[in-house]
């Protein structure tokens, strides 16, 4: 009972952080703050994906005995597939963040500022 309550509570907290970081991406005018909010959003979604594969009262997905797959491991371990897919997702999020940082460096070289309101004025 307490285990499932804690699981639901952490799920609600993750969804709240997703909403707050999405608000940060949309409504902050400075480009670096947008990038920070986007990074938080991506990391929270990766954590959410790992949570989907969780199982209560479980063991990590490891096979200790040499080449002996005990039925216990399959029936008591967490799902290894979301963890493997999240590895790829983290690296792709990192690549996108790198690209955005260097784009913002170029914006700073061209306009001298990173505040999107001032950039909009400078463009006209």
């Amino acid at each position: 009972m307490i285990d499932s309550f804690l699981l639901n509570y952490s799920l609600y907290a993750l969804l709240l952080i997703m909403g707050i970081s999405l608000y940060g991406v949309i409504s902050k005018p400075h480009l670096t703050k947008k990038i920070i909010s986007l990074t938080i959003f991506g990391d929270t979604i990766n954590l959410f994906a790992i949570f989907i594969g969780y199982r209560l009262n479980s063991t990590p997905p490891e096979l200790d005995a040499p080449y002996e797959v005990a039925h216990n491991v399959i029936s008591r371990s967490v799902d290894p597939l979301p963890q493997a897919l999240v590895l790829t997702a983290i690296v792709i999020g990192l690549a996108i963040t790198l690209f955005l940082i260097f784009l913002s460096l170029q914006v700073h070289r061209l306009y001298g500022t990173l505040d999107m309101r001032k950039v909009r004025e400078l463009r006209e």
Partner: protein
Amino acid sequence: MIKRVALLFSLIVLVFGTALFITLATPLGGLGLDVRLLGKLYLYFTAHENPELTTASREPVAAIVWDFRGLDTFFETTVFVMAVIAAYSMFLFSFKSEERAPGDSFTVIPRLITKLLLPINIAVASSIALHGSTSPGGGFQAGSALAVIGVLSATVFSYISLNSPRINAKTTLALMCIGLLGIAAIGFYPVLIGYLSANSYFMQNQPKPDSSFGYPGEVLGYAFGGSIGFLNMAEFLTISFGFLTIFSLLSLPERVLKEKEEAEEVGEF
């Protein structure tokens, strides 16, 4: 002001509505009760007694990342390297002559401790890469652990340590390309064997029913994982030097960038 409050309120309502839907959606199975059949199948086939059905590795996550879904990882490495190349192409300067600016480093204590920590970091990162088939770890995590060296030396020894004539973005990029060639070689070597003697497939790990080629599954009594072990080592090289390229480009201070931009405008490149 009212617009912002409305935006925040609508986002919070959306978030809690989704949470309620997830909790009440019992046809989906709920959370935390049982694992999907696909996860169970991957766990079953990771270390099988039949040598034609096993991946010779004891870590299901490493087997999924490098063997069952190996092509995904292939293209994910491509995406990461494309980001590094895009970053590198914005800094096409020459690093031939750099003088050490005075007063740019710390006192003796941080420098000595950092000099002691750098080889320890390399050892720990290599161990994470090498035991990627027997416990959680692998190439990506080891590369990220080695990237701390770039941050430490750029902070403690100033940006000159990563932008000198011998260690600069060009040499780290070349070492990253050597790691990439290693990954491609491990993937294409079975195809070469397939043309010469036996029948084998691209990125094949262990012997299959219709092809007898296989990478070594066990080394000195430890589960090595066949191609998984080799791919972990090559990916460790790629990711760590990719990160070092990024940090050596990002550690250039603004006055150096301005000098180099003016030099570029004048005509000396």
